[in-house]
């Protein structure tokens, strides 16, 4: 994947360089470039790395939303509306992907042309036994309505989830994602986090409040 800075995009309407390839900050024109031509990072004018400034991402997302959302007055023709809907959906997906650390790591894996975590279901060796034990613990505590045990189990799962997220961040930060071995390690952690998330979903809602 090419460097995001190497491709200055010009607005098709006013020919000015655009910070984001989908909407011109100068003249407000929507740019009908096919979204497959640029990465989610390029969309927001960000470097394609795991470490991104989430505040900046959010500000750029909101600025772009203000320009391309279908509610912006004056977009009345069918084709303007269709274009705005397509761009907004693409922008929303890009934002959700980059905002969420797991999805962002998964996306970096995709940019590095690696198989996705879902394609390769491998997990760290010790994970399944641990998940099994915690799941039983949740089921028993739910059955017995043991709020204390549920709360402590939840805390344990949250701790595991946090550690896995830290591991994901550290692999993305220091490792070379083009290396198959690094990719493999990342995929294992990405799959692990899904197990923790599923466990958290199983804990009754009352425990949280």
């Amino acid at each position, binding site marked *: 994947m090419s460097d995001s800075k190497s491709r200055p995009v010009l607005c098709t309407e006013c020919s000015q360089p655009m910070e984001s390839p989908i909407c011109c900050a100068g003249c407000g024109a929507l740019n009908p470039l096919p979204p497959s031509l640029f990465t989610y990072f390029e969309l927001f004018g960000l470097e394609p790395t795991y470490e991104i400034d989430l505040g900046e991402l959010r500000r750029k997302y909101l600025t772009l939303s203000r320009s391309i959302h279908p509610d912006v007055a004056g977009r009345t023709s069918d084709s303007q509306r269709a274009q705005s809907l397509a761009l907004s959906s693409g922008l*929303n997906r890009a934002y959700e992907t980059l905002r969420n650390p797991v999805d962002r790591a998964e996306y970096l894996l995709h940019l590095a042309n690696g198989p996705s975590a879902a394609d390769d279901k491998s997990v760290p060796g010790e994970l399944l036994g641990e998940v099994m034990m915690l799941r039983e613990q949740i089921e028993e505590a739910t059955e017995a309505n043991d709020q204390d045990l549920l709360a402590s189990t939840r805390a344990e799962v949250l701790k595991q989830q946090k550690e896995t997220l830290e591991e994901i961040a550290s692999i993305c930060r220091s490792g070379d994602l083009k290396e198959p071995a690094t990719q493999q390690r990342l995929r294992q952690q990405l799959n692990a986090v899904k197990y923790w998330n599923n466990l958290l979903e199983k804990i009754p*809602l009352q425990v949280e409040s």
Partner: protein
Amino acid sequence: MTSNTTNNMSDIIIGIDLGTTHSLVAYADASGPHVIKDESGDARLPSVLRFEDDGRVVVGWHAKTHAVERPRSTVYSVKRLMGRGYDELVASGELAHLPYRVVQRASDTPGRDIAAIEVGDRLLTPPELSAMVLRELKDRASRYFGREVHKAVITVPAYFDDAQRQATRDAGRIAGLEVVRIVNEPTAAALAYGIGLREQLAEASKNTEKTAHRGIAAGGLSLQLAGACSSSEGSSSEQSQDGSDADESLVAVYDLGGGTFDISILRLCAGVFEVLSTHGDTQLGGDDLDREIMGLIYREIQDQFGLNVESPATQQSIRLLAENVKMRLSEEESAAIEIDLGHDRVYRRTISRDEFEKMIEPWVEKTLNSCRQALRDAKVRGSDIHQVVMVGGSTRIPYVRRRVQELFQRVPYTALNPDEVVALGAAVQAAVLAGLEKDALLLDVIPLSLGIETMGGAMGKLILRNTRIPCQATERFSTFVDGQTNVKINVLQGERELARDCRSLGEFELRGLPPMPAGIPKILVTFLIDENGILNVSAVEERSRKEASIQIVPTHGLTREEVRRMELESYAHAREDMTAHRLIDLRNQIAFDTAKAEQMLARVGDELDPAYRSEIEQAMRELRRLGESESDPDVIHKALNDFDRKTIALAEKSIVNALRSDNKE
């Protein structure tokens, strides 16, 4: 096309809250959003319809307060039937509570299930009935502006699925309205809340700084939100890892209306209203709380007197009574009921607030579970919420407020008029779409996951709940049999694993595929959820890049042709009612209302306060005189409404009488 910077006269967009119990219409101008009131100064229009023998339809207060007289022809709570099938309504037990008749509409297409209401010799679908309420509001707004209004923003419960949203949009079309946007009710409320704060802040700064002007652009509402979000680094706390700003606020909107419940968690920041998650129940509201009281009364009358009082007339009257008890219990510690059942049988009962709270506890607990789910989905804790905004008439119940306060650990915000706030928000969104309001931007989510039925009857999710809209997903389809030219797709909405446990939105049939060996045609189907939360489906054959044709048969909804036909019918009806008819109708109404009041006075007049009695008699004489001399329908309409309001206490008394006569047989 019109300019989008000025308030073009031909392009008024009104905001409508189409509610289960009441509906309202509002608009926004430079000074902010305003509700449009009726001739008697009331903004609320009861969403109640009364069908007369001659085919006339009366909408509003009159229909509501006189429900006992025409129990089978008075239709209410239509919203709970919107976009729902007859079979599902039977299965959920919803129909057992209704005195009017709901049937399954005949259809020549298998798999469709559409409920309709039978009134006299007419069979009307919920969208047609809602259209009558919308038309009343549209006419009210048209009278207010002095010319016809054609465009509206209409609100729906956030938890409405696609079929319920489509049904609402259809209702608008049938009423002759272009529905420019469907907005979620809690989101609309948040918008009104946010704009209200902005106005307050503007007001405050104007007061402290006398020379400062309010910065309202000509004809517009553009005013910077005070405390605009400064750009800070992404917070590093455990919960907030997504670049949230320091000055923004997290708001929960708890919306318990007459028939539906929603909870939405929003992030408000510099005019952006960003929904993080939403949850709810489209069959949970004040109606259910009334039914608890009704059930108690039925059971006890049955036990004490062996009487079954579930006839349509008693159902209508006990329902009004129960609603009244519920409202009284918000003000007082207990409410006494007395029902004269005839033959010296009098049912007397005092319901304490404590007892009422026990009755409604399971319902309130259900709403709290929705809140917990919404919090989990938004990845925030109850204590992270800065403000809990209460919306909907049922949030006046002290028990509801108390439980919500416990959950969020803060006193809920009840300063907004819970009846009007949604309509006001709809009007603000109308101003956004008209280009008058430039600060506000709504970013909403889809409330329920969307998917398709896969092999073996599973639900294959394509878009998960609480995904930001607009959004889209694509899926490839092919053929199973050589030479197959059609492919059918069952589109589903819901969270359950099996297709049969989710709601079927409709069957989408790809047609006219070139006959080829099985598996060779590749059709790329795009499921797009637009800003209204409504599904749009398109398909392309990948080889030829040709648009594939899709035939859509909505499972619980109307086809485009059906809506068009209903619009024409409704228009014809409405035109008839317009001019001369209106005057004749109003005069008949006077004759009817005064005769009715006379009857009621004859029966229960002695039990009334003498001053009240003579006031009614005086009003009756004046109304009759007006009917003979006045030729302006609006003046008569107003007088009728005033009279109606004056006689509410009398009508309540007469409920007892209706019960008595009902149980004599």
